[in-house]
């Protein structure tokens, strides 16, 4: 095959698109984290994310978050088409900063919980979940 100028341009564009795709996905997750924390330093102690190690069905994966003293907890699934999962805000009558729900995961990926503590600092916990069947209907 003769490599013409047009073909090499197309090749280059294809390679660029293939490279850009995963980068864009994780960038969306980072953007969501930055929007929540405002770029502040994120610690690691003080928030707990409980999730199964292996989820057979990505359509309903049970998760639990708890962060004593937190005012807000943001949960993100970094490998999903859109990383946002849920934002829990706790009011004055919340007995504990704990919540449990069921989420969808497109595939094996990291799930992140970031909590905003009472003093305004941020902490995060990450859990890798292996998914056998993805939950995006693909």
């Amino acid at each position, binding site marked *: 095959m003769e490599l013409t100028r047009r073909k090499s341009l197309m090749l280059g564009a294809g390679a660029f698109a293939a490279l850009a795709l995963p980068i864009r996905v994780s960038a969306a997750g980072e953007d969501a984290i930055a929007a929540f924390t405002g770029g502040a330093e994120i610690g690691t102690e003080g928030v707990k994310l409980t999730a199964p190690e292996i989820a057979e069905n990505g*359509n*309903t*994966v049970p998760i639990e978050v708890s962060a004593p003293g937190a005012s807000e907890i943001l949960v993100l*699934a970094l490998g*999903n*088409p*859109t990383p*946002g*999962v*849920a*934002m*829990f*805000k*706790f*009011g*004055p*009558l*919340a*007995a*504990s900063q*704990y*919540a*449990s*729900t*069921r*989420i*969808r*995961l497109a595939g094996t990926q990291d799930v992140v919980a970031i909590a905003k503590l009472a003093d305004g600092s941020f902490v995060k916990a990450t859990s890798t979940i292996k998914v056998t069947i993805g*939950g*995006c*209907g*693909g």
Partner: protein
Amino acid sequence: MASGVKPRVKVPKTAAAGEAIVIKTLISHKMESGQRKDDDGLLIPRSIINRFTCDFNGQNVVDITLEPAISTNPYLEFEALVPEAGEFKFTWYDDDGDVYEESKEIAIG
């Protein structure tokens, strides 16, 4: 999706004053993520419940923002303080503007 939506809430009937209780909620809703395609390859538009709140006698317990990554029939579990007898109010907000409400009385005893 205004049809077949049925909220269900589990709250104890009585509690001691100042006690922490566990509340479990479930609402039947398909939570269409906006990522799936139908048989013709067209995207099915997003239709989810995007917010849930729980209040007790006008004071907030939790306010949860839901994204498409929440499973069908969203299930939420959390803990609330019961300082006095009163009523829990639960509200779900649908993408299509519908609001589903449910309330539960709780007594001190």
